[in-house]
Every structure is written in C-alpha cells, then in structure tokens.
C-alpha cells in the first residue's frame, strides 16, 4: 500500500521553520502555548523593566499581604513582592533550563556518535558509563552532583548537563548505529568517502532531527528539575529568586500565606506545559513516526 501510505513531507521540501509554522497554525492550542512561551521569555528578558518592585527588597510594613492592586500576587513573609520575585525567578529558571539541555545535547551527541560510529573500546567505555547513568533518575544524579559541586549558576548548568547528557548520548549512539548499517552509508564508504565526511554528511543530518526533538522536550524537564533542586535547597540560593526556592520559602511560611507557593508553582506548570506543547509540535514535524495520537 505504498501509494496510500506516502509519508508526510520532510524538511527537505520546505524550510523547517516554514513547516513548523504550518504545523503550529493548524493547532490553535499550540498557538496559544507558543504565545504564552513568548510572553514568558519576554518577561524574563526584560525583568528589570517589567517587574514592579525589587525582588529582594524586604519590608516589614507589608508582610504576608493578600493580592491587591499594589501587589498583584501579594507579598511574602519578608514583605517582598511575589510577582516581582516570580518575574525575576523566570530568568534563572529559563536560562538554566535552556542552556543546560543544549550543552548536554552537544556533549551527548558527540559521545554517542563517536561510540556508535567507531565502536571498539571507546564504545564500550562510553556505553557502560552511559548505561549506568541512565539507570539513575535524573533527579538523583542532580542531587549527587549538586552535593559535590555546590549551587552557583554554572554549577546548576553542570549538574543538569551531567543529568541529561546520557540521554542524548544514548539516542545519538542508537541512531548512529542504525545509520551506520544503512546501505547509503555503506555506499558512501564504498565510494571512498572518509569517516569524518560520512559523519558530517550522512550521519549528523539524519540524526539531528531526533536530537532536536529530544532537546525541545528535555527543556521542559530541565526547567522542572532546576525547580526541584532549588526547592530542595540545592539549586539557586535565597535571596536570589527562582521558582523552586520561592516555593521552598513559601513552605516555611505556609501558615502565613500560600500565595507564593500557588503562584510560583503555576508559573512552573505553565512554562513546562508550554515548552512541552511546542516541543510536541516540533516532534510532529521532524519525527512524525513517533507522534502520540
């Protein structure tokens, strides 16, 4: 039934962006979340101009206030404006949440392609370590590395990179192995093309789709994980706001006001959901076989 089951057009017809845009235009829900995502990013980028108050400015005059015209989301037990803290918190959460999966993708893809293409002892070593790391839940790896490294911005990036790179290495290795046994790679070898050129011309272009798909979906996970670590006190440290530590603070003041918890948690949920929905759209375009409906 080849005539009926023609695969949907791939990125080689139109530009990726064009196709992505077309896919997003078909789905009003995805449009909505893309809009949300853009707003969140803009807010995070221009926090200095948008936030109504200084996020670390304490005031004994307005402790634990309910939402009001002055403080849309109320104030916490130090009298800090919750909305401003959430706006500034977006910065940390998003930066760490986006940068670390990208670094993890680069590192993991490199390791995976090397292991998958060249095989041998490099493959054995990389695979063994990657398998082991994969057996650990990302949060546990995060806790382990955070315990050793500390909790600065780049420490957090390193923590999440270690937690995610194995995922990318696994996918890159598996797809490289699959590509390696594809006849078109063998054809290139038989045409006298060297290994580096084969990786650059034949392997990477064909596996990049699945890597990008995983990347977009892991950004959502990274944001959630950063929040969890900050909540556990292992991530971004007070008084510097991040969504996770706002909830942590809120928990210590749970009898005073539950607004910081509710608001910060909603921010995390919305952001993760938005990245996830947009990530799904990216996957539907790049990797239509794995779509979920």
């Amino acid at each position, binding site marked *: *039934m*080849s*005539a*009926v089951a023609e695969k949907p057009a791939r990125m080689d017809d139109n530009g990726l962006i064009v196709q992505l845009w077309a896919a997003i235009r078909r789905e009003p829900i995805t449009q909505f979340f893309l809009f949300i995502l853009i707003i969140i990013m803009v807010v995070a980028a221009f926090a200095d101009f948008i936030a109504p108050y200084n996020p670390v400015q304490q005031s004994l005059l307005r402790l634990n206030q309910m939402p009001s015209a002055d403080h849309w989301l109320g104030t916490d037990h130090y009298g800090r404006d919750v909305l401003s803290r959430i706006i500034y918190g977006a910065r940390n959460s998003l930066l760490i949440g986006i940068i670390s999966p990208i670094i993890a993708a680069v590192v993991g893809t490199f390791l995976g392609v090397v292991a998958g293409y060249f095989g041998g002892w490099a493959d054995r070593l990389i695979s063994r370590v990657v398998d082991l790391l994969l057996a650990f839940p990302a949060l546990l790896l995060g806790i382990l590395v955070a315990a050793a490294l500390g909790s600065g911005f780049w420490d957090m990036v390193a923590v999440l990179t270690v937690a995610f790179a194995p995922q990318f290495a696994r996918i890159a290795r598996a797809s490289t192995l699959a590509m390696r046994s594809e006849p078109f790679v063998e054809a290139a070898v038989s045409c006298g093309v060297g290994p580096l050129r084969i990786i650059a011309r034949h392997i990477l272009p064909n596996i990049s789709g699945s890597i990008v798909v995983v990347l977009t979906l892991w950004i959502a996970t990274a944001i959630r994980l950063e929040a969890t670590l900050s909540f556990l006190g292992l991530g971004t440290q007070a008084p510097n706001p991040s969504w996770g530590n706002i909830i942590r603070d809120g928990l210590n003041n749970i009898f005073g006001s539950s607004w910081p918890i509710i608001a910060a948690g909603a921010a995390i949920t919305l952001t993760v959901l938005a990245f996830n929905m947009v990530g799904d759209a990216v996957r539907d375009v790049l990797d239509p076989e794995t779509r979920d409906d």
Partner: protein
Amino acid sequence: MTEPVLKVDNLSIEFGPEGGALRVINDVSFSVGAGECLGIVGESGSGKSMTSLAIMRLIPSPPGRIATGRVELEGRNLLDLPMSQMPAIRGNDIAMIFQEPMSSLNPVMTIGDQISEAIMLHEPMNAQQRYKRTLEMLTLVGIPDPEKRFKSYPHEFSGGMRQRVMIAMALSCNPKVLIADEPTTALDVTIQAQVLELMRDLRTKFQTSIVLISHDLGVIADIADRVLVMYCGRVVEIANVDEIFADPAHPYTEGLLRSIPSETNEGQRLYQIPGTVPAVADRGTGCTFYDRCPKRMDICKNELPPHFKVSETHSAACFAIPEASR
C-alpha cells in the same frame, strides 16, 4: 461448476477521509468453487492483499472502508453481518495465513496454546480433546516431536516451521476457505518447495477451497486451478491456469510473463514493460494500464474496458481483444 463456496461481487475499497477518499480496490469480482484453488497475482500496490483482508473484514478502519460490493460465503453476504458475528466466521469458515511467518505468531504464547486457542474458539471440546487435536494438527503439517514442540515458543522455530504452524492453526477448525497471502514469499526456495508441497497434500486431504495470493507466477502455476490477475486495484484477467500461461489475453499479463527470464528467452534481451505503476491518485478514468500498454488505442484513454470473454473460462478487460474471439 457447482455452487461457489466464496463469491466476491463488485468489491470496492476506499482509503482516507470521507470525500477525499482514494479507491484502492475497484469492482473486484470472482468466485471460488468447492475444493478449488484460485490464484491471485499482482505486483505491489495491485490490491491483492487488501482484497483478501476485505473478505475477512479485517481492513483497518479507519482509514479503510469497504465502499461497495458483496462477499458471499455459501450464499450469505458477510458484509451484511454485524461486526460482532465476524469472529465466529473467521478461523472457522474462512481461515487465513500470512506472508510473515516470523511476526505472525504471538511471541509470548507457546505454539500449542496458539493452535488450541483457535480450536477452543470454534469447537466444543474440552482441554484434553483440544490437546489431542493440536498434536494431530502438528503431526499433519510435518512438525516432528509434537509433544515437545507443543510447549515451544515461536522464536525457537525457523521460518518454514512457523509457516507450518500457521497452516496447522488455519486448518485446525476445518475451514471451508483458506486464504493464503504470499505464504512462501518470505521463505527460502528449498523451504518454499516444502511448504508448497505441504499445501498441495493438505488440499487433497481436506478439500478446502484456497485463495492463494502471490506475486510469483511460478508459485501460482504450481498449485492454482484458476488465476486472477490484478493491476492497480482492478481485475484485468481471469482464466484457467493453463490458458493464462499459454495464451494471455491482457497486455499486462502478457508483458509480465514475457519479462520473466526463463529457458525460452535465455540469451535474449528481456522484454520490459515500460514505465512504472501509477500512484492511486494518478489513475484516470480510462484503463489503468494505458500509459504502459503497447496495444493502447484512443478509446482506452478515457473509457474503462469491461471484461470480454475470450473463452467460457477466460476473460480479460481490454479493448484490444479482437471482436471475433470475444
């Protein structure tokens, strides 16, 4: 010929959403008599497998849909039955074996359990009787040491052995019709010879009507009584096996036969049918073979040729068949 066991009338199948659906099977009609073996030949995309699934009403729906036609089993139209009555017919009246013996058996169930499940679904037997029947079936299809093999899992069997198991399962309830969809395509040639021989033996033993689907004209010639040639979802020729190989009437059948290397054309350049099979969406209103046909005429472009009788048992859908012989 006596009353046919299976009769398919004007069967059409569509794929895709309502309105934009593509017709992959068009007006397919044929019948199979008691104990007869009908071979269906065609290349990929000709719709031969789809036709067989439609008889069992196993077309995945959506997106597939039987648009028109009747499938009569001993005079009863299966397409009129509520879907809930089909399981009682499948495996019992009409059984089926498939091309991929490697993936057609459940990997986590033993061979014996899979065969005795088929018996349990249709025959009022107790567990012990079923066990005995299963062993009989395994012996019948030539599986050595059936008591031991009963407890084996599919992955412990070779492709040929699995196809034997499939045949045992299909015949375990004495079906009236057996549909074999490319039963030997995935097998090596020496194993294919074994399975074909088994099918021939069982055919004489059980007197089951067989619909054999294959792209391999050799396999068809081997066991079929009559042959139906499909091209682009339509029946283009139907005839007794000797007639079709000796005297093909449709240019497609003729081209197909001539393009196969054999002793008669050794050392010569092979005849080749020009061009490629058109995609479903590109099929016009005329003869689907028009673009590739060496005998095409103006009328063929826009008008669909009906079936003309070449002899009592032989007909073909081609305007080029001389009036005299119709």
